[in-house]
């Protein structure tokens, strides 16, 4: 299968602390690839390196055959890579509708149109995206007043606005109740399927990880210690020792 996203020997340190150490990882077209690892393993840092919010000290990031190392986030989005964040990232004092509309305005390159009324732009498409994630009824509510699970759905709608081919999801079910988690994952799977999206995601819920992943990679102390099919992860002695063993021991 064709590779859409490739991180090669990425290295990132903060004041001497090595957050990401020579990580090489890739994502195939349409693949669902989970990255797991204990807290502080470097998952979010890796995401920030991919999306341009942080710059690698060494190594490279290639997306759709184009090197994007050092490219600012707003350009990377336009290439077709979208992301949701671990902590909820919406515009709280704007309506749900406007949250999505702004993303569409940006996608169409109209963010700098000073003399075009914003109100009437991309209305149908905004409504479609909200319908897709099941938020039509809440369109006129303030985003900050939505329930937690719905804010996550809204963030998904915002991420989808740019018509991405790859979606990075940082803990898409963090803070959700078990029934909410099931709903959210179902929604993400359906959308990924329908749009042919490749997913690179981090997730703490092992049921979700093993349930939907085509491939699982394990990060530990900033290093990639395993990458392969879900059924092989459990058997890997190194993974058992540093991760699964650890979490079982804690539980």
């Amino acid at each position, binding site marked *: 299968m064709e590779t859409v996203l490739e991180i090669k020997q990425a290295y990132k340190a903060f004041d001497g602390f090595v957050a990401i150490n020579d990580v090489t990882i890739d994502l195939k077209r349409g693949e669902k690839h989970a990255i797991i690892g204990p807290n502080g393993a470097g998952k979010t840092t890796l995401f920030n390196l991919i*999306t341009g*919010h942080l710059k690698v000290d060494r190594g490279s990031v290639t997306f759709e055959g184009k090197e994007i190392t050092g490219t*600012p*986030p*707003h*350009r990377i*989005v*336009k290439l077709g890579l*979208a*992301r949701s*964040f671990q902590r909820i*990232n*919406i*515009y*709280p*004092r*704007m309506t749900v509708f*406007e*949250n999505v*509309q*702004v*993303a569409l*305005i*940006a*996608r169409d390159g*109209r*963010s*700098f*149109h*000073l*003399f*075009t*009324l*914003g*109100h009437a*732009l991309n209305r149908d498409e905004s409504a479609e995206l909200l319908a897709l994630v099941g938020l039509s009824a809440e369109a006129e509510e303030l985003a900050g007043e939505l329930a937690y699970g719905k804010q996550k759905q809204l963030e998904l709608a*915002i991420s989808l*606005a*740019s018509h991405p081919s790859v979606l990075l999801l940082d803990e898409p079910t963090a803070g959700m109740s078990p029934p909410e988690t099931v709903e959210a994952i179902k929604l993400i799977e359906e959308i990924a399927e329908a749009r042919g999206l490749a997913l690179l995601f981090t997730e703490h819920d092992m049921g979700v990880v093993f349930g939907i992943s085509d491939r699982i990679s394990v990060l530990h102390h900033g290093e990639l210690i395993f990458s392969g099919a879900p059924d092989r992860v459990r058997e890997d002695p190194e993974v058992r020792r540093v991760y699964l063993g650890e979490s079982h021991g804690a539980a």
Partner: protein
Amino acid sequence: MQGKYKATFWLSVVLVALLLLVPALGSKYLVDLTTEIMIYALFALSLNVLIGYSGNISFGHAAYFAIGGYACAIFLTTYEWPLIISMPAAIVLAGLAAAFVGYFCIRLTDIYFSMLTLAFGMLVWAVAFKWRGVTGGDDGFVGVAVPEFIGDRYAFFYFTLTVVALSTGLLWLICHSAFGRTLVAVRENRMRASFVGVDTRRLRLTAFVVAGTFAGIAGSLFAMYNRGVYVESAFWTESGQVLIMTLLGGLYSFFGPALGAAVLYTLQVGINQYTEYWPVVLGTILLIIIMFLPNGLVGLAQKISAQFSRRT
């Protein structure tokens, strides 16, 4: 929503019509006061592009007001350029100055952004103060050669009304444009906005330039109205005063700052007639806003009308 825009439009038409009638009341004093209020209202509205819409608090906004004022005065008087060139040139100069300062300021956020705007503001004041040959230094630039057709009090009133109304209309459009909507999104969450494809730095810089340009318009009107420009116009207390006007009216409403300007300026003029303790009153007003009226007078009005509609 469409209905809301329509209501805004008709209310504005009514307001402009009422303002047109002010000279008919026969009070020179009222005409002058209204002219001054309109100028300050535009100044406060321009600041709100930065504060309310982009969420960046500037402590140095008087700099662009003063640059617009000095430039317009100098072009008209020293160079004897006609108004049709002097005023646009002054406005462009204020915008360019904002672009230069903004280039540095937008690299920072929060208090660091604010402090840098203050520093640049003080720098502009220092230049105005020391560059005696051009600005008149602490004597001020006096005797501005105001063109004859707007030389009389009433003509200048109508001129100001026209310029302020057009500028306000343009500002309204900018604040409600695709750009304005995106600006609010950047205020709400810069990181998210950057990852839907918005160049947030360039967007904040554009807002800075818009704010500075319109402050320049207000400044050039002010210079002609007073037939002079004084260094006080560039001082940081002037930036503070327009900031208080904006807060008093309400940050999260387009017209709030204009209302704040009208109320604060009227109070200032009124109270100065009876006592020299205006700063005490100003301090008290600021205290009340911060403790009880976080969304200013417009926020208060909204709260009251919500209370009423709940009861009926």
